[in-house]
């Protein structure tokens, strides 16, 4: 297993797509946070320093990183079928289990990598505006919980990508299917089934992407951010945010992650290489 993972690391770090996706996400993060930093300098009521800035750093844009991570998973896995290296690896002595397990290990690695990039870049920007002499805690339990939840969201997105890659075995179509499901496919399906069978609605809201997304709202982890979001909603006459029960969302996400990985494995093992 160690040999398979070492090979995976060599393939990943030498693949230009790895650096392109990391670079693009890094640039997008920098551009986004420069915007936040400038806005904060103009508006003293909405500062950009730690720990308050975590709500921006760990905001919606984290999803972009998981999209890049998923694209990279598809490129790294599906290409092995195009190049027939998936077959050659097995011929050379890897078992199918070892090959697939090495791919599964990419999921936490890439989810953590893209999340860490956002945290590192964002944290550096916010730290520049932070008065360290004030002695406030820059990172706490709320941030740690949020990172954990978002990491699981990343695992969910990338496990869906792994499933698409091994089921379709071609980068372009796998990416198209993954993106279609992520962007509108799931919502269309859930909406359609929900309107046809009303009794299914409580189940349908636990569709995979919807379940993963419940864990990526930073305000659910930080009471102060939640309070501010509620005040903002009241001021602008918008529906008040609700506190999710994160336990079921976490259990649901883990269920989908395991299901996608296991079904992907069965699919991969059943077919000839």
């Amino acid at each position, binding site marked *: 297993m160690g*040999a*398979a993972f*070492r*090979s995976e690391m*060599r*393939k990943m770090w*030498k*693949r*230009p797509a790895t650096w392109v996706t990391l670079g693009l996400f890094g640039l997008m993060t920098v551009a986004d946070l420069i915007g936040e930093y400038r806005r904060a300098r103009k508006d003293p009521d909405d500062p950009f320093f730690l720990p308050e800035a975590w709500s921006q750093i760990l905001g919606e844009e984290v999803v972009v990183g998981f999209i890049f991570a998923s694209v990279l998973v598809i490129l790294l896995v599906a290409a092995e079928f195009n*190049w*027939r*290296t998936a*077959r*050659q*690896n*097995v*011929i*050379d*002595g*890897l*078992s199918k289990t070892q090959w697939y397990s090495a791919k599964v290990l990419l999921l936490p690695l890439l989810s953590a990598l893209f999340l860490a990039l956002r945290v590192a870049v964002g944290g550096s920007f916010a730290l520049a505006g932070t008065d360290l002499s004030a002695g406030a805690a820059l990172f706490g339990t709320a941030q740690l919980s949020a990172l954990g939840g978002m990491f699981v969201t990343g695992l969910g997105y990338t496990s869906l990508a792994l499933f698409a890659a091994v089921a379709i075995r071609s980068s372009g179509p796998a990416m198209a299917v993954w993106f279609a499901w992520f962007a509108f496919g799931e919502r269309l399906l859930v909406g359609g089934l929900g309107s046809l069978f009303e009794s299914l609605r409580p189940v349908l809201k636990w569709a995979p992407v919807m379940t993963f997304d419940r864990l990526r709202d930073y305000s659910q982890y930080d009471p102060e951010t939640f309070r501010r979001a509620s005040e903002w909603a009241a001021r602008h006459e918008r529906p008040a945010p609700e506190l999710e029960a994160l336990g079921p969302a976490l259990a649901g996400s883990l269920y989908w992650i395991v299901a996608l990985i296991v079904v992907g494995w069965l699919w991969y093992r059943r077919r*000839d*290489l």
Partner: protein
Amino acid sequence: MTSVSEPPIIQTFGLSKRYRKTTAVDDVSFRVEPGQVFGFLGPNGAGKTTTIGLLLGIITPSGGRFELFGGASAPELHAARRRIGATLETPNFYPYLSGRDNLRIVANVKRRGSTEIERVLDLVGLGRRAKHKFKAYSLGMKQRLALAATMLGDPELIILDEPANGLDPEGMREIREIIRGLGERGKTIFLSSHLLTEVERTCTHVAIIQDGQLVRQDSVADVTSHGVAGLRSADLEALAAAVAEYPAARWSKRRGDRLVAELEDGDLAALNTWLAERGIHVSHLALEARSLEDVFMEATGAAGIDGAVDQSSPAEAGGHRLGEVP
């Protein structure tokens, strides 16, 4: 050296693979003994690559079974595959990695050190181009890299599927020399190819597959020498007519001033007696060597392989099948 007690390196028992309505490999049984350089011949689509894929565990059999190094269970086969170096169809590598990095991946899987990478690179003459990306390699260089990868880990069995594809004559000669060298070092080699001359020059044993079925298996020496008689007589017409009626003659044809005929039993004395009883006296009667190409043509019904062999049948070449009018 081969010991009598050693199990066959490969042994298949009625191996089959079906894809819906197509049968790619049909009840194939053969054995490869230690130290053999085994040529696996067949026209395109005959089932050569599928058979190799079955042995290498990348295709699941629909029927039959096989043993590698005497083992047949899943763990035994997995362990056995670590003793095999193989390449299937085209050389399969990561295009964005250098030749050396690609071999590092293979070496890592086979748990071999980097010194061995340099050894096999030198062996195939890629040492100076090892840092270049695989996608920049010519087909010949890709084939050499594939051969280098198969040799990593000093495997006991080397399986090569069309290793000379796309090579120029010089490249083919080099590959042939490498394979021959491996054979001389006692390695067992399973070589699938449609280049009959290459197989004849390189292999000790041969099997011919057509439409998924094994139609012949023997040593190259036996296959090319057994059963074909060359005959001369003052009256060649009478000789040809008599041989055409000989029960053990599969076919006969004229070649210049002589007649050649394949005998089921290879028994020249019986043929001579039979001819003498009909008043035909031969001035020359001897078993003749045939080329592997001739054997292949007969075995596959002159199906031919990509223009690598003469497309003409014995009948078209001036001979006749038994019972046909010459």
